[in-house]
């Protein structure tokens, strides 16, 4: 339902090529479309070569952190003296982001193939795909595909009939944004509360049940078969800008936008063109006010700052924000930005796991102060108080949920201070109605 829009000529469709093509969901349909060739090729080379190829591709983690995937794999011990694990992070919950769900709904075998290649490379026999509990349809589709892949011998005691044992299973989450943080995700698989763990040790040293573990995002793993088939150098060539940002990326566009949806472009694509060309621009009569290009946890930028921004890791930083997960939330001039910031603060306060004081108290107080401002009971000092509170929430906790809340609020106050001041003065929104 709702998908897909036809590909735009300026998209580079690699992962999204078969979105909307129901036949691609089944094993036979997937084989007909060239499926599992990447896994065949990987099994025909050494695992060191697979890791080298992924390193060459330059692909960086698509979940939001942007850590080079090949390097992450190379941190796993070379000698295996007990189980290694691969976790696929399918706990997609960053507001503004809805790409992993589409990958799982339309091309489940692409993800299974990526999982199997990664499992081979890091010597993992067991793969856990951690899917958020709300994704009922994606879970059902993935489970069917896993069962099919096992029946066809792709998975099981001999991967593709000649490789090592590789088993894939789904671990269903139960409603906790924080479980998208990789160490919280591991705790959740172990049957614990989803509290992030202190690092070091890093997962490659001591992850699931204390064993070497790699955690990769759905989009990252789904790109791996293409890297195996066409080569790391080819993938690295897919960039319009920085050699540090390579390949294609799915951008989810939502909020105040004419044609919301997922658009796949090569790294370095102009943000402005994504919003105004591919996604159809603003609704009639509206002007762009603000955008968070990488999900709700990255700083707001203004329409002016968005003007020259390039969609890659470096380009977004240069524009004063981050690429994050690639979920662009668009706010037009009718949006009450103060209310939306308070809504995001409510999100962080709700999703804080509460183990670190700065986060548990900081997110809750940020919300209270913002709600006071919304009720017209704010003081001018409150804006300084929010910024000060944000500083106390930054760089002091086990994970970055607290930092995210702080940076979002701070960037909103910096960029849209008159909106906040209007509320403090009159208790009303200054937004264009």
């Amino acid at each position, binding site marked *: 339902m709702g998908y897909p829009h036809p590909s735009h000529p300026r998209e580079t469709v690699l992962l999204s090529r078969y979105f909307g093509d129901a036949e691609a969901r089944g094993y036979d349909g997937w084989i007909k479309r060239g499926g599992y060739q990447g896994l065949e090729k990987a099994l025909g080379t050494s695992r060191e070569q697979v890791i080298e190829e992924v390193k060459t591709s330059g692909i960086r983690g698509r979940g939001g952190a942007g850590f080079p995937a090949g390097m992450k794999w190379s941190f796993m011990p070379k000698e295996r003296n007990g189980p290694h694990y691969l976790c696929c992070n399918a706990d997609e919950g960053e507001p503004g982001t809805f790409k992993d769900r589409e990958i799982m709904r339309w091309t489940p075998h692409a993800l299974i193939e990526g999982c199997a290649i990664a499992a081979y490379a890091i010597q993992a026999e067991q793969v856990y795909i951690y899917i958020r509990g709300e994704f*009922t349809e994606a879970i059902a589709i993935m489970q069917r595909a896993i069962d099919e892949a096992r029946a066809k011998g792709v998975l099981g005691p001999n991967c593709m009939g000649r490789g090592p044992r590789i088993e894939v299973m789904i671990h269903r989450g139960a*409603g906790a944004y924080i479980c998208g943080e990789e160490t919280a995700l591991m705790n959740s698989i172990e049957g614990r509360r989803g509290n992030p763990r202190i690092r070091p040790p890093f997962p490659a040293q001591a992850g699931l049940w204390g064993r070497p573990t790699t955690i990769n995002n759905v989009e990252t793993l789904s790109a791996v078969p293409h890297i195996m088939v066409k080569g790391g150098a080819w993938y690295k060539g897919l960039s319009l800008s920085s050699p540090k940002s390579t390949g294609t990326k799915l951008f989810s566009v939502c909020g105040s936008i004419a044609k919301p949806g997922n658009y796949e472009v090569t790294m370095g694509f102009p943000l402005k063109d994504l919003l105004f060309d591919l996604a159809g621009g603003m609704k009639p009569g509206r002007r762009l006010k603000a955008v968070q290009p990488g999900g709700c946890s990255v700083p707001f930028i203004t329409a002016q700052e968005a003007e020259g921004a390039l969609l890659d890791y470096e380009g977004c930083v240069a524009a004063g924000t981050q690429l994050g997960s690639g979920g662009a939330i668009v706010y037009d001039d009718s949006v009450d930005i103060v209310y939306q910031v308070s809504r995001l603060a409510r999100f962080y306060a709700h999703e804080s796991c509460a183990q670190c004081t700065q986060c548990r108290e900081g997110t809750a107080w940020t919300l209270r102060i913002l709600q006071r401002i919304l009720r017209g009971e704010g003081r001018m000092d409150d804006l300084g108080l929010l910024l000060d509170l944000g500083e106390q929430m930054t760089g002091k906790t086990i994970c970055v949920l607290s930092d995210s809340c702080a940076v979002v609020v701070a960037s909103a106050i910096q960029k849209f201070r008159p909106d906040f001041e209007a509320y403090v003065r009159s208790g009303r929104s200054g937004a264009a109605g």
Partner: protein
Amino acid sequence: MSHSGAGAQASGGAALPKVFEGQGRSELDAILEKYPNRQAALLPALWMVQRSHGWVSPEGIVETAETLDLTLAYVKGVATFYTMYRQHPVGRNFVAVCTTSPCSVCGAEAVVEALLKATGCGRVGETSPDGKWTVVETECLGACGFATPVLVNDDFIEGVTAESVPALLERYR
């Protein structure tokens, strides 16, 4: 909370079925085979409790703790961490509406209002007097481009608007 026996009273009289007996036991055993220890089966086990009882009932928590060799406090601690495990009995249809910013910008609050009105639920989180509906707000459902997504029981429904609410509910009456 005490061990099984007292639990039934906590749920208002009607005895709840055992979750991990018969077919449930085989299902749990198959899950246990896939993990290196029993604790790891806790999330799947709690899902089974909820499927059977409609919520994570005290009886279900006791049975889970006994079956997986965990303490009651531990199981309760995990069950209360995750939003989707229901801490109270709910209406026959459980409706969760995303109202996080991307959906809020697209009018999610109006969808909530329409749902409350059409179901007769007084407020968010409450069950309608006829016991048929519970409507809750939820944080990001991960379908922001298809605002507003609504989860009705296990059905993930996209693009709900205030206007489409009556037709949507008709399917569950």
